[in-house]
């Protein structure tokens, strides 16, 4: 085994980490709160909000993520809106993942017993107070497993941005493989994804433990 080659290749691949990580973390930062807002719209009593959020979720979950990336990067300029490739990727990923998170949050919220709303209501809490202090905190505990699933999927989905020319981890590895006729770079990239999903799995397990101070 040529250790120098492996190390040099690994170093070369780290150049792709920046794209992968910025996309991953920015997407999480934007899509989680957006997803919560869409979930709240979905369960609101206002017909219009239900309808708009329902359509949003249907559109964003019903078409391929890569198509959405293409649409935002190649399609929107036709309407006079242009993004650089990284921004386009972040926008598309955030909008897409928000739709998935919205559905997870909605089902989480709807799994909370009606009695929680009623007791908050008779104590005088307003609806926003009830959501913020009673319902959403309990929902957060319940949705950890499916959210963890989505986040791990997102780590791997970031590789889709090769489609608009971004040099993420996988694309960087692919360039090296093509140049060197050697698949070592792919193996290193694979290990990179595995390590990241492992870390995230551990983080989510910790979160679940942190929430285990109560059960209901």
């Amino acid at each position, binding site marked *: 085994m040529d250790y120098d080659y492996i190390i040099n290749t690994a170093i070369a691949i780290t150049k792709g980490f920046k794209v992968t990580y910025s996309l991953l973390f920015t997407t999480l930062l934007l899509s989680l709160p957006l997803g919560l807002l869409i979930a709240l719209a979905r369960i609101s009593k206002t017909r219009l909000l239900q309808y708009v959020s329902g359509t949003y979720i249907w559109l964003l979950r019903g078409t391929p993520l890569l198509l959405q990336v293409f649409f935002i990067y190649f399609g929107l300029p036709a309407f006079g809106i242009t993004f650089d490739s990284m921004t386009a990727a972040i926008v598309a990923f955030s909008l897409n993942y928000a739709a998935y998170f919205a559905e997870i949050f909605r089902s989480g919220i709807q799994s909370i*017993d009606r009695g*929680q709303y009623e007791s*908050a209501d*008779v*104590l*005088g*809490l307003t609806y926003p107070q009830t959501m913020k202090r009673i319902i959403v*905190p309990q929902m957060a505990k319940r949705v950890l497993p499916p959210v963890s699933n989505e986040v791990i999927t997102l780590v791997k989905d970031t590789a889709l941005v090769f489609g608009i020319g971004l040099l993420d981890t996988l694309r960087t590895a692919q360039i090296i493989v093509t140049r060197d006729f050697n698949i070592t770079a792919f193996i290193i990239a694979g290990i990179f994804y595995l390590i990241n999903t492992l870390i995230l799995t551990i983080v989510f397990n910790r979160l679940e433990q942190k929430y285990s101070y*109560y059960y209901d």
Partner: protein
Amino acid sequence: MNILKIKNVSKKFGALEVLKNINLEITRGEVVAIIGPSGSGKSTLLRCLIRLVNIDKGSIEIDGKSMVDQDDTGVSIYSSEKDIRVLRKKMGMVFQNFNLFPHKSVLENIIEAPLTVNRTIREEAESTADKLLAKVGLSDKRNSFPCELSGGQKQRVAIARALAMNPAIMLFDEPTSALDPELTGEVLRVMKALAEEHMTMLVVTHEMAFAREVADRVIFMDLGEIIEQGKPEDVFGNPTHPRTQAFLGQILR
């Protein structure tokens, strides 16, 4: 003075008439037990009073102020949301299933509404909560979570939580029905102590011994109507209506 005035109250769920022209007046400090078969509308009556559900017809007056009035045809017209908020705050409610907030400690359950609704300062809210916990005999559970409590303890916390908002009227919807028989006593004792402090109480219950001993008045409901009411010794000892006789015959057998 009557703290509660319920006039011609009717409520339908779809085609089902759950409350039919209910009339009821309750004086301050009175303890009223509401009994009756399943589906007779007992819970619905309490839920209408605290406006968890809206009534269709009739009026409700709380502490001399109208929460919901009726027009010439009897159709209910609710007061403004702001006024209703003020009136609802005069009532506390305890549910069969406790409905404690599972993610909050006993103390946090009790101070939640004082802090968020009344904007009481924390120290004050906590000292009130500690007094209430002592009153329901749970000072040692202050920092426990609901999942660590027995059913009877949960219900006592729920009572303390409702009392923390300093209500004038307490509504109890079968507070002991979800409890193992050996745990009902501790909850009933707390309720009895409350009655002795002259809290106005409406208690839907299957605990006939409690109703007999603590209530000033017993109301028998069936099929959405008040069939019979009176002093416990009269209703239990000498029921006049055949449906009351049948119900009591079954339950006291």
